[in-house]
């Protein structure tokens, strides 16, 4: 059935389901997180994905996006930023991180990815 043939109720349902789904995480980041899975606890992966979602939503500071156009790196940095010991780079994802038990600072080493904020994290 094509969209144009759908009665109004069905079209409205389709729109409601699309609104409920929201924006997907960036594919490259999602795949990267999946590849990293064996080395990461689920909450950490979820936090990484949450960072990606925030990046997609434009919630991250422009300076962070400017560090790298690479979405994979941007996602990882969103995580590192959220976990800053000084908490001076807190992002809206903090609530999610707290909800998953990240109450203490965690430094994440990401293979093959240079983290320019490592000094700050340490």
């Amino acid at each position, binding site marked *: 059935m094509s969209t144009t043939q759908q009665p109004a109720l069905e079209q409205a349902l389709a729109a409601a389901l699309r609104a409920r789904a929201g924006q997907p995480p960036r*594919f490259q980041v999602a795949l990267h997180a999946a590849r990293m899975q064996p080395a990461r606890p689920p909450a950490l992966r979820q936090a990484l994905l949450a960072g990606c979602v925030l990046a997609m939503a434009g919630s991250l500071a422009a300076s962070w996006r400017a560090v790298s156009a690479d979405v994979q790196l941007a996602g990882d940095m969103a995580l590192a930023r959220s976990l800053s010991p000084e908490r001076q780079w807190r992002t809206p994802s903090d609530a999610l991180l707290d909800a998953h038990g990240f109450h203490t600072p965690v430094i994440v080493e990401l293979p093959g990815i240079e983290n320019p904020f490592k000094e700050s994290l340490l």
Partner: protein
Amino acid sequence: MPGQATLPGNPLLTEQALAEVHAQCHAWAVDCCRGRREEALEVLQTAYIHVLEGRARFDGRSSLRTWMFAVVRNLARSRWRRQLLGRRIELPLDGAAWEAIADPATVHGEHVESAATHGRLLAAFEALPARQREVLALVFAHDHSIEQAAAVLGLAVGTARTHYERGKQALRQRMGVVVGAPGATP
């Protein structure tokens, strides 16, 4: 950019092919998790892990989208069963909660019904039996034919058609009016 090389655990799949169905799989995962987005992210990521490790292997007998939808659904159901056993079921959101979530301005720039209507619709939708919900979501929100929906759900086409018709009828009854129809009461 997604690569053209095949995935180690799935010789018939490339990153590029997977990327093309990524957004649809995400939306379907949210439907399978009854709107719980964080849970849907976990399910989607678990699906990618299964694909990367070859635990779910694409054999080309169906479209990639149909196959991925089936993988996502199976994982969501497995997760649901584990939660059920652990008595950690989260209740589906009620209509008011859906109204708070549904933001018509974010729906791909389309003009859509009000958030309140979304909330009522989703509440009525979530009250349907699982199979009816799944068939309706696949057909209306994911542009599947009934035959394709049957393939995703592992049902006979006739059975899927029955769920489709009953689901539509039940949804209309629950809503009471045809949304957007001339003369329909708000």
